[in-house]
């Protein structure tokens, strides 16, 4: 059989591990085989690594209404350049994505772009106001992959219980920004010795832990009313940032509760010490925590208590981020650097097992979204990332496809940069140096 693209001498890596070198033949949107063959185009990929495409359960792509910060065209291209083939977008837009029509509009627009595939999350409550539930069933039919009021916190425990119960009956996971609004108050950084000294309002670790503890109780309650029905995941805790939050989830998982969680690249590679610079680029919610928290999160990622990496890609304009620390919005744009950053810092820097990291970027995230795992084998869908494990390049935000052309990692020298991303067999993006047109 003649393929469209032959990737020669490429190292294969998927969640199960490394599978040596192969000549991967791609056609009809699939991996046709791993033993070469005729193809219209041939790519010599000696020294490069082929993996399933990355999957992000948490990105803010800002459409509709906040296109000044990001839009699908820039956010999904940024995703491709970061090695992502699948992205769940958050619904805290203007207006919030809370209707089937809004979901369909996003799906349609993203399909026409032909970049990374979009799986919109829809609001859990109408207008994300935390009061009345949205149309879970109709939203799911329209293409929504999860429900969440992210961007806000779910202050009413009763509403969250109703939402979890109802969403589960239609097979939708609910994800939560788990922070107690009363405890975090106006906190703009981690509460601790540094916030006291810098005179900045602190957001205590207890704000996250207290909210996770409450939400886990709600899950226990909802499960008690669903005798005999065991969803694989009911509640997804977004952007875990604290050691204590991790402990609570570890315990809940040991009990068998259908709970998943994610961690962001920034919470693994930066700490509150960065706020010493007083630069709002480091302002993120939940805040950058301590080195001890970051170490705990790495351990949680390794052992699997943390299911996946969620970027929480949250672009803003430079002018917004150049306000002061009290007024600048929360968020870091990171989808283009997430993989090389963690490959460099965790795998190369700390000996974190490469297949495990890849699992957390792929199948771990897919499990949260109820998407099937991807294996590098004949017949598998060819939505793939090709990355260069060797060449070192500094993060240069000016080159980002994202509209947010600044980064807390600017100047960091990273390895593992993606060089090509295929979506359903098509070269959706390739670095110029490969000489492969898209």
């Amino acid at each position, binding site marked *: 059989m003649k393929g469209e693209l032959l990737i020669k001498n490429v190292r294969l890596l998927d969640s199960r591990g490394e599978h040596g070198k192969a000549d991967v033949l791609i056609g009809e949107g699939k991996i046709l085989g791993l033993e070469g063959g005729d193809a219209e185009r041939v790519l010599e990929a000696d020294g490069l690594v082929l993996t399933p495409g990355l999957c992000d359960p948490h990105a803010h792509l800002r459409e509709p209404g906040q296109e000044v910060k990001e839009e699908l065209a820039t956010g999904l291209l940024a995703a491709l350049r970061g090695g992502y083939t699948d992205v769940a977008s958050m619904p805290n837009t203007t207006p919030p994505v809370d209707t089937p029509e809004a979901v369909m509009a996003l799906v349609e627009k993203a399909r026409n772009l032909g970049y990374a595939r979009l799986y919109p999350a829809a609001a859990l409550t109408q207008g994300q106001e935390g009061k009345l539930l949205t149309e879970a069933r109709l939203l799911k039919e329209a293409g929504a992959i999860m429900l969440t009021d992210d961007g806000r916190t779910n202050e009413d425990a009763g509403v969250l219980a109703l939402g979890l119960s109802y969403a589960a009956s239609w097979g939708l996971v609910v994800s939560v920004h788990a922070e107690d609004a009363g405890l975090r108050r106006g906190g703009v950084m981690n*509460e*601790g*010795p540094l*916030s*006291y*000294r*810098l*005179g*900045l309002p602190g957001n205590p670790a207890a704000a996250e832990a207290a909210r996770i503890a409450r939400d886990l109780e709600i899950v226990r309650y909802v499960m008690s009313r669903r005798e005999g029905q065991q969803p694989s995941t009911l509640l997804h805790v977004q952007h875990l940032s604290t050691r204590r939050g991790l402990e609570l989830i570890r315990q809940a998982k040991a009990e068998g509760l259908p709970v998943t969680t994610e961690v962001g690249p920034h919470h693994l590679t930066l700490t509150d010490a960065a706020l010493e*610079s*007083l*630069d*709002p680029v480091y302002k993120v919610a939940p805040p950058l925590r301590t080195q001890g928290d970051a170490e705990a999160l790495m351990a949680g990622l390794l052992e699997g208590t943390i299911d996946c990496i969620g970027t929480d890609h949250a672009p803003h304009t430079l*002018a917004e981020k*150049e*306000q*002061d*620390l*009290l*007024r600048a919005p929360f968020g870091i744009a990171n989808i283009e650097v997430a993989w090389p950053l963690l490959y460099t810092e965790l795998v190369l820097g700390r000996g974190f097992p490469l297949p495990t990291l890849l699992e957390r970027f792929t199948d771990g995230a897919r499990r949260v979204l109820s998407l099937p795992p991807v294996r590098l084998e004949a017949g598998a869908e060819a939505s793939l990332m090709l990355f260069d494990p060797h060449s070192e390049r500094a993060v240069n935000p000016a080159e980002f496809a994202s509209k947010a052309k600044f980064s807390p990692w600017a100047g960091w020298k990273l390895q593992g940069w993606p060089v090509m991303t295929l979506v359903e067999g098509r070269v959706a993006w390739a670095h110029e140096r490969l000489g492969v047109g898209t």
Partner: protein
Amino acid sequence: MGAGVIAMEQSTEKPKHLLDFQGWSRAQVESLFETARMMQEVLERPVKKVPALTGFTVATVFFESSTRTRLSFELAARRMSADVLSFSGATSSMAKGESYKDTLLTLDAMGIDAYVIRVDAAGVPHQAVKWLGKPVINAGDGWRAHPTQALLDAFSLLERLGTLEGKKIAIVGDILHSRVARSNAELLPMLGADVWLCGPATLLPGELPKARLTTDLREALQDADAVMALRLQKERMDKGLLPSEPEYIAGYQITRERLGWARPDAPLLHPGPMNRDLELEGTLAESERSLVERQVANGQAVRMAVLYHLLVGRRG
């Protein structure tokens, strides 16, 4: 101003900005006080003006209003013959879309030699340093730092006590939200003092590096060599951090009786503006114990010294 000042200036490596006391050594602070003493002499003359900063332009950029601090800086600059450019505009009412950076770069295009910045949020003066190539003086940023206030407090204390070595200084009030407390807790220990910070539990930070924190007023005032009361913002009650004014008065007002816990001659300071009968009982501010007027007068001399050190030090 004598040539001695200039000679002394050239002998030390000085920080380029005054944002807080990071990067400042005890020797540099003492050298600054040396200059401030000379400025005091200038202020005692019939003609209170020297040509030291002729040709320099100092911009006072107040994103948060503060008449006293602004006047003090502007007068200090004028008394050294600098030109003064005033910008004021609350952040909330700044033209739509105009950022701190836009504002500062616009001023910079007018040929400013030094910036005095006051703002209600921590960190803006630090950001300004990245945007401007000129000396920046922090005239108060949010809850974080107010270094010239701490300098004038320390200067006034030195005047009265002679030394701060081993002296117990109690600062009482809303420590959590106080840039004055933070800057004093940074500067006074550098000069040898033992700083105690005291206030209601809801208005204390968890810790500060060089200070002792307590909710017990007696413990803080006991045998103190000086006592400073801070201004209490009424909005703390609205935010639920304090039950009421009477509750604060009952626990933390500095009264004549409570001042008796301190050493007999312990001076009393207040950074102003004062809520009479809230932080301090009745007429304590006017009593012989009070340094409040000295603080204001010394503010002039200290700010002249700061401007002189940062501007002339750079040119020299």
